[in-house]
């Protein structure tokens, strides 16, 4: 792990050079003791230069690592050799002396390697400690902070920790564009197109590969590096890239691998925070939508109650006037029956409006249960006015399976289709209500002998307030019936279509999946 010594001391607390002090004290003590107690101190000191050299190699390697220790060992070997040469000529070099020199070299190299390894391990431990300390500080800053100020505070903290002159966050907006979080940073980036280019390149790379490695300007960006060295780290989350973290490196040096690693982890923490915030926003939006839905539902219920209650009272009162024991002349009874019919129509039209409102407001969820298909037929017949009931031909073959659907809603849907068929068919023409099934679907169909639905109108007739161009033979209808039918079918995950019947007429077919 390579790092800049000058930056190291500048960025991090200086390490006390205890080994240097101990080494110097030891060497001084050795020289003093040798001088004081040896019979020929000068000779002894000269003979023991090798010990002194090995001690110095150990000190240097302990302070500056293996490479410095080995270089120093070679240097000491060279100095010792020169000292020996200065004492005599090459001819004076004995084999013992050469052995001594090379033994010194070997011991010095071993000492350098050992001490250097110890130092490297110490450096690694220090780096780990620094990393943990930084992450701890960052997490303490990020985790308890919520709200929009959290990111700004986090960025300021990161900028201070990394000795960066600029720390910015670019996030993807709704349009998919990268936007700086702090608006006042826009001019800063406008003046530095190379910084913006770096951010965009990193984001593009992140989108392509979902990689999360920090990125520096490439060699081609050499000019940009002169004006400001920088690092950009993508912010990636499970749902995709969220943005880019940009830091300009300090003037005194570039970030080392450890710091880049730290930046990557910091970016992951920021991405996790952003993702959490996005989820929180989504939850809040869902809660707001649910509240709106509930409000609409309550509104529909309230309007329903407000409209239906007086209608129910009027219906009960007017029908009460026709009950036994109440003497009325024929004309009055006819008028009362007509009023009752009007009230019934009014009730059905209000019902249609409320059904559409309910479907749009609350998502009229079907109450799915296992049902006999034949029950739909009898339930529809119960709702059809007695005068028209004889026109309905039910074709429900025996052996139809039990299917899962909402009986009330499906009755409602088929009632609308039957009502529609009655309205568009000639008087007394039969309406066929039938059911069938195969391995995938159960089918209900309502067949009339009316004018049919032309090809162009087949998709439109299910829209609100749409009527077939052929026109109904009876007055009335809100134009909502088929909309209600198609919505009910949709909520059952089914489908509806209209077909031609020869020689004339139409057939509405509802298909429901067997396991809806």
């Amino acid at each position, binding site marked *: 792990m390579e790092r800049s010594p000058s930056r190291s001391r500048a960025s991090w607390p200086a390490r006390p050079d205890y080994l240097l002090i101990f080494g110097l004290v030891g060497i001084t003590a050795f020289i003093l003791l040798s001088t004081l107690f040896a019979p020929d101190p000068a000779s002894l000191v000269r003979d023991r230069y090798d010990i002194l050299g090995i001690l110095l190699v150990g000190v240097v390697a302990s302070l500056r690592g293996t490479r410095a220790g080995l270089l120093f060992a070679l240097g000491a070997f060279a100095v010792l050799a020169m000292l020996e040469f200065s004492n005599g000529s090459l001819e004076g070099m004995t084999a013992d002396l050469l052995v001594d020199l090379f033994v010194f070299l070997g011991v010095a190299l071993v000492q350098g390697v050992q001490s250097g390894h110890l130092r490297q391990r110490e450096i690694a431990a220090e780096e780990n400690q620094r990393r943990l300390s930084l992450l701890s500080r960052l997490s303490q800053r990020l985790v308890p902070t919520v709200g929009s100020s959290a990111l700004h505070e986090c960025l300021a903290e990161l900028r201070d920790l990394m000795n960066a002159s600029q720390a910015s966050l670019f996030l993807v907006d709704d349009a998919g564009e990268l936007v700086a979080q702090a608006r006042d940073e826009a001019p800063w980036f406008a003046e530095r197109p190379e910084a913006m280019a770096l951010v965009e390149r990193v984001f593009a790379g992140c989108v392509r590969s979902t990689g999360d490695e920090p990125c520096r300007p490439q060699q081609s960006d050499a000019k940009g590096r002169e004006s400001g060295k920088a690092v950009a780290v993508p912010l990636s989350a499970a749902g995709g890239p969220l943005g880019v973290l940009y830091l300009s490196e300090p003037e005194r040096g570039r970030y080392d691998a450890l710091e880049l690693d730290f930046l990557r982890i910091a970016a992951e923490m920021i991405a996790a925070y952003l993702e959490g915030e996005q989820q929180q926003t989504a939850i809040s939006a869902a809660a707001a939508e649910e509240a709106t839905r509930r409000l609409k539902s309550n509104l529909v219920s309230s309007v*329903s*109650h407000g409209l*239906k*209650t*007086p*209608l*129910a*009272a*009027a*219906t*009960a*009162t007017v*029908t*009460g*006037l*026709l*009950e036994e*024991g*109440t003497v009325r002349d024929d004309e009055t009874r006819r008028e009362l029956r007509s009023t*009752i019919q009007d*009230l019934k129509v009014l*009730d059905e039209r209000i*019902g249609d409006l409320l059904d559409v409102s*309910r479907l749009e407001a609350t998502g009229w969820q079907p*109450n799915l*249960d*296992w*049902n*006999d298909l*034949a*029950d739909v*037929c*009898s*339930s529809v*017949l119960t709702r059809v006015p007695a005068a028209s009931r004889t026109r309905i031909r*039910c074709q*429900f073959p*025996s052996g139809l399976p*039990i299917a899962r659907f*909402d*009986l*009330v809603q499906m*009755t409602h849907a088929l009632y609308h289709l039957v009502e529609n068929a009655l309205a568009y068919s000639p008087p007394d023409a039969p309406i066929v209500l039938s059911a069938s099934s195969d391995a995938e679907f159960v089918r209900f169909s309502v067949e009339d002998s009316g004018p049919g639905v032309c090809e162009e109108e087949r998709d439109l007739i299910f829209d609100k307030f749409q009527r077939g161009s052929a026109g109904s033979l009876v007055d009335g209808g809100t134009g909502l019936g088929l909309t209600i039918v198609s919505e009910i079918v949709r909520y059952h995950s089914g489908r509806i279509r209209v077909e031609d019947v020869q020689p004339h007429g139409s057939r509405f077919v509802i298909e429901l999946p067997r396991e809806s």
Partner: protein
Amino acid sequence: MIPVTARGAKILVIDDEPHILRAMRSILSKSYEVELAASGEEGLQFAAECAPDLVILDLALPGITGMEVCRTLREWLKAPILILSVRDGEGDKIAALDLGADDYLTKPFLAGELLAHVRALLRRAGSAPNGPGQVRSGDLVVDLAERKVTRRGDPVKLTRIEYTILARLASSADKVVTTGMLIRSVWGVATTEDSRALRVHISNLRSKIEPDPSVPCHVVTEPGVGYRFLTESV
């Protein structure tokens, strides 16, 4: 059980809507003694004071809900309870029937429908406490004492479950029996799969007792709520 003759029976109507109360008085007062209560609290008080023979109860009450009133009344009152509900209120109807209500009527209703329900409920309330030995629906006779079913005098062969279902419905003739009640009477505990099995058994039962199973006239479906064994047109 309080023996009651239909004419002169005392009916308590609990509804918060003055229009409905007025209409109820207009329809019912010709044949019955009518008490009107405009809230659940008032309804409970009147019920305690006047001991009605029938209670007509709206489920959508302010304050104490109709459901609460139904539960409280059922703790001590044996008179039948007819609930008034809106369309699409199947869940409320089932809950009220499970709480002990006897029948329901969906708003808006015709005066004739209301009177028919009232008559049927008062008639059942006045019948023998142990219930009839035989229940007749057109040409179909269910003999609950002998555990026999005949159609036009010919015995109908039913499986044990089919008979249990038919007997449960016939013993509450003309009353709605919810799907949950039927399942519990057959299997004990209600589950979705039991619902499927129940539909199959009822389909088979109808194929044995109904002239046209697709348009049943003995065991009719109350959509979203349950079934009713008809002894006459309600």
